[in-house]
C-alpha cells in the first residue's frame, strides 16, 4: 500500500462510522459520560447518506427499552414515538385463505411503538449534535487506516471526482483522513469496512457464518376509513414456499400511513426466486389487499439484515476499534427487532470506550466492551433465542413446532446450539429448481422494480466508477449466468443487474450502479462472492423520507 500525502487529517478521540441507531447511541452516551464527569472527549461521526436518516429503513416496531436507558426523558424531549402498538395479528397464509396463529411471546408488542426508524435516527442526530458530536453526513468512510503496528488508526473518506475510468477528473478532491484513539464501526448489516476487518483481524474465527435476510418495504398512505393506528399484522406462509424462511409485516402508523414489507431469508435455494416479486405478490392476498384500495404508495426501499444471532457474533474488538449494531449482528430474530439491541450495544461500547480512554496503560484494544456486552441483558436475550432461526432448516412447520418446544419447554435454555451456513453457498443449480412465474404488475397495488426505485429517490453522481465491483468479470457469465441463471438479476431489489445481449447469443452483465439502494444483498448472496460492494461517493444512494 502506498502512503498518500495529498489528504488532510483530523485527530479525534473517537470516530464513529455510520449514523444509525447504534452509532448515534454511542456518540450520545460518550458525550453524556463526558459531561457528567467534566471531561473532554471529541467525537466525530461519518454518515454515507446525504443526511442522517436518508439510508435508514426498518419496519419498524421499537421496543423502547434501550432508548429509555439512553434518555429517560425521551417523551419530554419529543422522540418521534407517536403510535403505541395496538392489536397484534399473526396470520398463516395459503394462496386464498388466512388462519390466525397464536402470537409467540417474543412477538408480543405491548408497550412498544410503531415508528419510522429514519425519523428516530434524525431525532437522535439532533440530540447528538446538541451534545457536541460533530456529524458529517454525505461522507462515506471508504478506507480503514492502520498504524505501523497493525492497529486501526482511523478511516479515510472517499475521493471525490474520480471518473468512470478510475482516474481523477477535473473536479477531483482527495478524501480526508480521520484519526482516532478508538474507531467505532457502526455500518449496519454487512458493512463494507467491517468485512475487511473480519479478514484482517480474524474476527470470525470460531463463530458461525453470519446468515442474512433481505427486507423490502413500501410506505403507503391509505384511506382513513381503513386506517387503524397501532395495528400490527405479521404473516408467514404464502407466497413463500415452506422451505424458504421469511414473512411479512404490515404496520399502521400515524397520519394514515401504513408500512408494509417482507423479509426473505437469504439462505434460499431456488435461484429463480425473486424476493421483490414475492413481496409484490403477497400484497394481492385477500387478507391484505383490502387495506390498499384507494391508497397511494409514497416510498420504497430495501435493506439486508443479520439473522445469525448469538452463534454468529464475531469477536467485537481489535486494536484501535470495535464493532457495534447490526454490522456485528445484534438482532433478535424471533422478536424481529434489532434497533433496541443496536442501541444497547452502542451504549455498552460507549461506556467501555470512555473507561478505556481514561485508563493508564490501557493498550489499543477496548476489550472491556466485549466483557460488558456479555454481562448485559442484550447477551442473555440473544442466547435464549439462538435456536429459533436455525430451526428453519426443517421448513416453516418444523421451525414453528421446534420454536414452541424451545420457547415453552426449554425456555431458551436447550442444552444444544444449532448452527448456520453461509447464505451464498446455499443457492442451487438453475436446472434443479423450478422456474417461478410471477404475475405482471398492475400499476395500482403491484409495481415493477424501476417505478419502485424511483420512489426511493436514489441517485449517484453519474460520472463515477461503479461501486459494485466484480473480482473477475468473466464469472458473471461463466458461473452466475451459466450455472445459476444470473440470480443477481432477481435478488437485487433495485434492478441494478441486467443481462443484455441474450438474443444475439452474447450475454453480458450490465451493472446499473446508479439505482443501488445500498441493501448489500449482492455482496451477501453472490454464489462465488465475486461481487464486492464498496462505498460510492458520499451522499449517493437513497433519500428515504419517513422510512
Amino acid at each position: 500500500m502506498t502512503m498518500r500525502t495529498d489528504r488532510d487529517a483530523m485527530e479525534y478521540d473517537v470516530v464513529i462510522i455510520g449514523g444509525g441507531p447504534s452509532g448515534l447511541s454511542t456518540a450520545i452516551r460518550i458525550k453524556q459520560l463526558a459531561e457528567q464527569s467534566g471531561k473532554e472527549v471529541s467525537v466525530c461521526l461519518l454518515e454515507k447518506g446525504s443526511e442522517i436518516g436518508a439510508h435508514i429503513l426498518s419496519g419498524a416496531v421499537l421496543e423502547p427499552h434501550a432508548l429509555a436507558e439512553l434518555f429517560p426523558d425521551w417523551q419530554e424531549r419529543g422522540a418521534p414515538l407517536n403510535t403505541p402498538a395496538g392489536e397484534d395479528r399473526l396470520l398463516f397464509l395459503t394462496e386464498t385463505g388466512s388462519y390466525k396463529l397464536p402470537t409467540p411471546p417474543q412477538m408480543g408488542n405491548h408497550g412498544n411503538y410503531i415508528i419510522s426508524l429514519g425519523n428516530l435516527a434524525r431525532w437522535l442526530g439532533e440530540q447528538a449534535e446538541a451534545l457536541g458530536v460533530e456529524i458529517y453526513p454525505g461522507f462515506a468512510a471508504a478506507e480503514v487506516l492502520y498504524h505501523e503496528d497493525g492497529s486501526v488508526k482511523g478511516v479515510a473518506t472517499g475521493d471525490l471526482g474520480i471518473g468512470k475510468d478510475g482516474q481523477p477528473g477535473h473536479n477531483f478532491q482527495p478524501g480526508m483522513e480521520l484519526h482516532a484513539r478508538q474507531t467505532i464501526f457502526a455500518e449496519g448489516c454487512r458493512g463494507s469496512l467491517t468485512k475487511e476487518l473480519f479478514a484482517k483481524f480474524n474476527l470470525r474465527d470460531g463463530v458461525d457464518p453470519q446468515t442474512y435476510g433481505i427486507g423490502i418495504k413500501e410506505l403507503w398512505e391509505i384511506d382513513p376509513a381503513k386506517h387503524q393506528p397501532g395495528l400490527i399484522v405479521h404473516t408467514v406462509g404464502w407466497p413463500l414456499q415452506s422451505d424458504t424462511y421469511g414473512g411479512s409485516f404490515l404496520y399502521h402508523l400515524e397520519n394514515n400511513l401504513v408500512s408494509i414489507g417482507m423479509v426473505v431469508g437469504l439462505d434460499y435455494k431456488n435461484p429463480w426466486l425473486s424476493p421483490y416479486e414475492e413481496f409484490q405478490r403477497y400484497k394481492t392476498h385477500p387478507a391484505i389487499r383490502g387495506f390498499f384500495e384507494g391508497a397511494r404508495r409514497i416510498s420504497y426501499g430495501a435493506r439486508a439484515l443479520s439473522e445469525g444471532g448469538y452463534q454468529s457474533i464475531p469477536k467485537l474488538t481489535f486494536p484501535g476499534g470495535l464493532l457495534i449494531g447490526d454490522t456485528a449482528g445484534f438482532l433478535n430474530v424471533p422478536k424481529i427487532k434489532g434497533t433496541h439491541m443496536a442501541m444497547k450495544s452502542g451504549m455498552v461500547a460507549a461506556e467501555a470506550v470512555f473507561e478505556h480512554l481514561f485508563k493508564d496503560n490501557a493498550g489499543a484494544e477496548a476489550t472491556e466492551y466485549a466483557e460488558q456486552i456479555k454481562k448485559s441483558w442484550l447477551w442473555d436475550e440473544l442466547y435464549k433465542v439462538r435456536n429459533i432461526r436455525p430451526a428453519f432448516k426443517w421448513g416453516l412447520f418444523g421451525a414453528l413446532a421446534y420454536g414452541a418446544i424451545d420457547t415453552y419447554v426449554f425456555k431458551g435454555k436447550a442444552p444444544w446450539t444449532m448452527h448456520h451456513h453461509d447464505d451464498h453457498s446455499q443457492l442451487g443449480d438453475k436446472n434443479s429448481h423450478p422456474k417461478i412465474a410471477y404475475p405482471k404488475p398492475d400499476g395500482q397495488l403491484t409495481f415493477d422494480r424501476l417505478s419502485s426505485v424511483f420512489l426511493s429517490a436514489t441517485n449517484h453522481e453519474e460520472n463515477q466508477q461503479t461501486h459494485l465491483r466484480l473480482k473477475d468479470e468473466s464469472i458473471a457469465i461463466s458461473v452466475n449466468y451459466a450455472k445459476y441463471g444470473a440470480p443477481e438479476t432477481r435478488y437485487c431489489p433495485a434492478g441494478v443487474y441486467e443481462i443484455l445481449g441474450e438474443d444475439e447469443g452474447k450475454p453480458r452483465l450490465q451493472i446499473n450502479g446508479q439505482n443501488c439502494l445500498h441493501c448489500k444483498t449482492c455482496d451477501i448472496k453472490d454464489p462465488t462472492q465475486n461481487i464486492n460492494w464498496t462505498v460510492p461517493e458520499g451522499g449517493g444512494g437513497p433519500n428515504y423520507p419517513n422510512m
Partner: protein
Amino acid sequence: MLWLAGGCVFEKENPMKILVPVKRVVDYNVKVRVKADGTGVDLANVKMSMNPFDEIAIEEAVRLKEAGIATEVIAVSCGVAACQETLRTAMAIGADRGILVETDVDLQPLAVAKLLQALCAKEQPQIVICGKQAIDDDANQTGQMLAALQNWPQATFASKVVIANGKASVTREIDGGLETLEISLPAVVSTDLRLNEPRYATLPNIMKAKKKPLDTVKPADLGVDVTPRLTTLKVAEPAKRSAGIRVADVAELVNKLKNEAKVI
C-alpha cells in the same frame, strides 16, 4: 493590471463585497408529493439542500474573490432556523460569513426582496449574485424585484460574468444565441446553469465553515413586514397521462384528431 482566473479576464478593482442569497429547498433528488388535503407539498422529513442555482451563484462569487476582484462574499438565507445548514454549505464552498434572517413565516419573493434590500443598505455590496430561480416554486422573481427596489441595473440568466472598471459585462443565453449586456455597479446578476460547475464542499472545508461567523437577525430587526400577500388556494398533481392507442393508418389518425381530440 490584468488577472487571469477560471477562464475569465478581470481587472483589479476597488475592494468590493458580494452578497449571495441562498435558499433552502427540497433536494432535487426527492420525488415530491402533494399532501392529501391539497394544501401544499409534503415536506415532513424529506431531504432539503441548497437551491442548485444558488450554489452556482456562490461558486461565481467565490471565484471572483479568488481572482482578487471581490474582497468578501456574504451568504444570506431567509427562512427557518434550519437554513443555517444551507449557509454552512455556502461557507464550505467559500463564502466568508453568513446572515440568517430567521422567520417561520412562509416567505414570498417580494418579502425576500425587501429583506435583501434592507441587508443591501446595511452591507453595501457592489453586486448581488442570486440564482435565477428556486427549484421549489420556480418563481424567478426575487432578483428582479430586488433590482427594482434598489433601483439597480440587473442582468439575469448569466452564463458568463466579467467585472471591470466598475461595470459588469454579463453574457446571457437567449433563444437566438448569446446576448452580452454591460451594466454599471452596483447591480443584481442572476445565474443560469452554465455559468460554472460548483466545486465539492469537501470535508475539511465543511469543518472550517463551522467556525465562520453566522449572524441571525429577525425580519422585524430589519424593519420589514414579511406577511404573505398571496394565498395558495390549492395544490394538485398534474393529471395522469392516459394510455395511448395505436391507429391503423393516417386516415384513422386524421379522423380521430378531427372528431375525438378536436385539435384539427
